[in-house]
């Protein structure tokens, strides 16, 4: 008797659960993102809240993916269970655009008279465009700039940040010193890392590129080699430090803990400096000029899956988040820079003492994106490690690297 009652209760409750799920799913937009830090999650929550207040007829469910983001999204796309709106990083966008899994947004953009896609800086929109079709809308951007410690500069008798390669080296030499007199260097000019992302701006500054106009990676060029020799040279001459040598995880930490006077980083570092490293008196500047001004920019899109029962609803959310209103809410916190010209003008970031360097970089910043299997990145990373840790021969490594990467080009 008791057993039977229990059974019915169980059955009824599970039925209720199922129906409530179905009902809930019917008109709720599922939204997924990663989280670089807890404050980003809070901001996302409040942005979605703004959307729901503006359009009370819609419901949004925020499904945070805290780790292995791209793996999870790809798995969800492959198993037909992707959220309706999610982030895609520019760096991995080509591997998504290769497949027919994302919704082209052009027809929605054209229909929506208030959206105004020409308001976007074109290079960010291009990062998610393939064969003339737009598969994602850039929500914001960041780029590499130079952060420098003003106190250290003053103590060394320097007033301005380095403007070119020669000054970067000269200043780094002056700033590298033993401050407590124990015979060991405890302050370095700049902190760098054996990673290709930080090297690429130098390649562009050296009038080079790492890709030809067809998108093939060209690493074995005089410009690339020149940039690598300069970059590695800073470390070899003992005026730059790498994080592992001072037992730290990343370059930002080395700068924040005052072991280096300069660091190359992006806008994402600003909140950390304000929360964690309050005593660091930092300033922002453009990356030093080589033969020309250059840096790389990073952008993230909001995209939708092709297989999506809520296309209209998803567009509503997408267009709000990347529209003038949503983007203003998002970027007014300074977490990242707006990809819309009008929003940048409205927030007056062009004249902001810090943000102006990010906004000003847009003129010469390039997107870091290749049409290769992700393995190319591991190969270059290994090569950089071999150069830094094993003092491998640079020309030989470049040749080998280019050779190893060749077969990884994605055929379309």
């Amino acid at each position, binding site marked *: 008797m008791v057993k039977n009652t229990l059974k019915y209760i169980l059955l009824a409750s599970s039925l209720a659960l199922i129906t409530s799920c179905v009902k809930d799913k019917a008109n709720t937009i599922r939204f997924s993102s990663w989280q670089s830090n807890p404050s980003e999650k809070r901001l996302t929550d409040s942005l979605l809240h703004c959307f729901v207040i503006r359009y009370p007829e819609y419901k949004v469910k925020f499904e945070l993916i805290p780790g*292995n983001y791209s*793996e999870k999204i*790809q*798995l969800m*796309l*492959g198993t037909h269970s992707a959220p309706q709106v999610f982030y895609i990083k520019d760096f991995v966008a080509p*591997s*998504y655009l*290769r*497949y*027919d*899994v994302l919704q082209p947004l052009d027809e929605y953009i054209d229909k929506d008279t208030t959206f105004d896609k020409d308001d976007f800086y074109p290079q960010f929109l291009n990062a998610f465009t393939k064969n003339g079709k737009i598969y994602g809308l850039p929500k914001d951007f960041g780029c590499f700039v130079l952060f420098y410690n003003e106190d250290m500069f003053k103590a060394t008798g320097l007033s301005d940040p380095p403007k070119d390669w020669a000054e970067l080296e000269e200043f780094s030499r002056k700033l590298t010193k033993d401050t407590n007199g124990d015979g060991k260097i405890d302050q370095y000019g700049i902190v760098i890392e054996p990673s290709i992302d930080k090297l690429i701006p130098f390649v562009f500054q050296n009038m080079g590129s790492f890709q030809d106009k067809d998108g093939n990676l060209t690493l074995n060029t005089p410009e690339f080699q020149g940039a690598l020799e300069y970059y590695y040279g800073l470390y070899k001459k003992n005026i730059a430090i790498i994080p*592992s*040598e*001072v*037992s730290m995880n990343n370059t930002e930490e080395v700068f924040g803990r005052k072991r280096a006077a300069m660091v190359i980083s992006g806008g994402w570092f600003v909140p950390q400096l304000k929360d964690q490293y309050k005593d660091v008196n930092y300033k922002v500047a453009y990356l030093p000029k080589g033969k020309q001004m250059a840096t790389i920019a990073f952008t993230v899109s909001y995209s939708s899956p092709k297989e999506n029962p809520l296309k209209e609803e998803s567009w509503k959310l997408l267009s709000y988040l990347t529209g003038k209103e949503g983007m203003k809410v998002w970027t007014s916190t300074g977490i990242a820079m707006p990809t819309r010209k009008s929003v940048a003008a409205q927030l007056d970031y062009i004249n902001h003492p810090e943000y102006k360097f990010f906004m000003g970089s847009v003129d010469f910043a390039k997107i870091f994106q290749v049409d290769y*299997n*992700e*393995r190319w990145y*591991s190969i270059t*990373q*290994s*090569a950089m*490690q*071999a150069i830094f*840790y*094993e003092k491998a021969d640079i020309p030989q490594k470049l040749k080998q690297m280019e050779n190893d990467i060749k077969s990884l080009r994605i055929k379309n």
Partner: protein
Amino acid sequence: MVSGDELNIKMKKNNSTKKEQQFWAYTFLFFPLMLLTIFLFIPILFSFIISFFDWELMAAHQKFAGLNNYVEIFRDKIFYKAMLNTVLYTIGVVPIQTMLALFLAFVMNQKIRGRSFFRTAFYIPAVTSSVVTSIIFVAIYSKEGLLNSLLGNLGIQANDWLTNPKTALISIMMLNIWTTSGYFMVSFLAGLQNIPDSLYEAAKLEGATQRQQFWHITVPMVRPVTYFVVVMSLIGCFQVFDQVFVMSDGGPNNATTTMSYYVYQNGFRYFRLGYGAAAAIVLAGIIMTVTVIQKKYFPPNPY
């Protein structure tokens, strides 16, 4: 005297109990078997199948690739590096770990003061999450970490253990020896407690020293346990993953890329699931071969 009818009835009874027993056996087996089928047998079969495909998660249709994945694996330089690293790792870890485990068990089996404290202390690494121990060891191995500061007292120059390609693999090996010795010590302890005291008593009467007792009684008597420990640690070493994932990401310059890390990298970092599956099948083949060889030439009980 038992009449024919009675015998029949008895037989029937017996038969039915046997049937009933079987019924219940399968009933109880059903659930674990179902779990194993869903989470083990089907995935193994599935990964075997996809190893013949150019399997891409997001592609609408999967391309059949025949043996291409296998051919490519054997042409990949990194694969050989991963193989070499795995073999070096296994050769370094298994003997030391086994001997250390046996030695610890032997000591812990003596009547010494604070025995349970030491047993617990040695076993703690085995029950601690490998991610936690890995993170602790990253700190210990770092340039300004504990190991360098200890070595510095002896006048040895600081080394960045995990970013130096020469020491990265050895560092991970040392960590693994430390964590698993305690685990296998427990297996050996169980084996030691099964050795009859009379053997030691007889040996003592004959005037055997501790060392002689260890080599001539303990070691041969725990041979089945040793066999088990070696098999388990061989398999564990061939599959080493978490420490590599947490501590070095296979770097620097692939110095710590092991077979299972290679599988992971290709499957989930480069999104070539078919290729990753093929590498996993190769790894499984290697482990199986080694185990068979071991079973043939080093049987658990040769007597």
